[in-house]
């Protein structure tokens, strides 16, 4: 082998390019940079129904993503859905009477938990429970209610005549 120095350089460049590619994937393509090993604290909230919410769904406040859903389970005593959320520690100033609602991004988009800050002076801590919640809006239910209601109005209208 004659050009060993050149070869070594090229091998070095190759390995560097590979590692740079991995960094690119990690930081630019995946969510590692925005939500990695950062410190989080966990709060829970009971919902009548958590709809299509999934583990890893976003938790946002005022439209900004501040955490994610870590677990969803069914409480067999209250028949409610218990959603655990990990919120980044830098947002540890959420008041205790924060409202949690499940919203849908767009008409058919993903569901996420929206937190709306209240006015209390006490803040949510690790293990706290959010008391004021609003369940997911289930599109089928809304359409069903709408159809039922319009049918009812129609029937009442016919009765009056």
């Amino acid at each position, binding site marked *: *082998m004659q050009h*060993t120095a050149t*070869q*070594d350089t*090229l*091998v070095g*460049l*190759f*390995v560097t*390019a*590979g*590692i740079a*590619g*991995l960094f*690119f*994937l*990690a930081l*630019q*393509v*995946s*969510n*590692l*940079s*925005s939500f*990695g090993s950062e410190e989080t604290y966990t709060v829970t909230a009971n919902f009548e129904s958590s709809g299509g919410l999934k583990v*890893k769904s*976003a938790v946002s406040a005022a439209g900004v993503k501040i955490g994610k859903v870590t677990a969803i389970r069914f409480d067999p005593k209250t028949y409610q859905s218990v959603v655990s959320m990990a919120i980044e520690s830098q947002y540890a100033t959420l008041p205790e009477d924060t409202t949690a609602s499940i919203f849908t991004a767009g008409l058919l988009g993903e569901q996420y938990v929206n937190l709306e800050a209240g006015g209390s002076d006490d803040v949510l801590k690790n293990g706290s429970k959010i008391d004021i919640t609003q369940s997911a809006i289930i599109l089928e239910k809304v359409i069903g209610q709408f159809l039922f209601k319009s049918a009812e109005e129609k029937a009442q209208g016919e009765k009056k005549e």
Partner: protein
Amino acid sequence: MMQFFQRLGADTRTSFTKLGRATYFLVATLAGILSVLPRPRLLMNQLFSVGVLSFLIITISGLFVGMVLGLQGFYILSDFGAEESLGIMVAASLVRELGPVVTALLFAGRAGSALTAEIGLMKATEQLSGMEMMAIDPIRRIITPRFLAGFISMPLLAVLFSAVGIIGGQLVGSGLLGVDDGSYWSQMQNQIDFYDDIINGIIKSVIFGFVTSWIALFEGYDAIPTSEGVSRATTRTVVNSAFSILILDFILTALMFGDK
């Protein structure tokens, strides 16, 4: 009728003895790793011919695969008004599937066949026996450095393939077709998980690198030492590697992404 059973029996015996030889060969190759480590020069030379020389074909293929994905994805997604999700589609298909699989297929064609032909010719020209005469273990000296080089190069190449492909998709998607650049990246970052998607893709490429190098080196080492034998061995390397890669990919995908 008897002939049929006789042939079946003979075929079974041949394939099982071959499998046995291949396993023995693999064990000997892996056992040689410790004696290669103090001689990094051997590994460096192989990393050059296996890895660096595959660099160009992998990056150019990656770029064009990404560009095609961008183009096709745009046509399909724009029917549903969802062309903002182009980034997720390009990145997920590259990182999970196409990156490791296409890289492994190209690697088998570019580097695997070269390895088989090289080893086969060494055997045909009795260079391997010559080494044994000089009390040099040809497996440790020739095979193990090549195996390690393939094993190390493959994940690096697969990562590069995916990275270049995602950039290619972005060039076509937002440069040519007018998808919003910000949503291309941000939707991708929201959906692609580092551990679930990227690390699993890398695990795949590590396994493919292992299998492809093993097949290529074994076929060369096991080749009938004639020109015809070497040519057959090279063909078998490409065919068997492609089969193993695609079948393993199905199994790995079922294991990794099954619970979603």
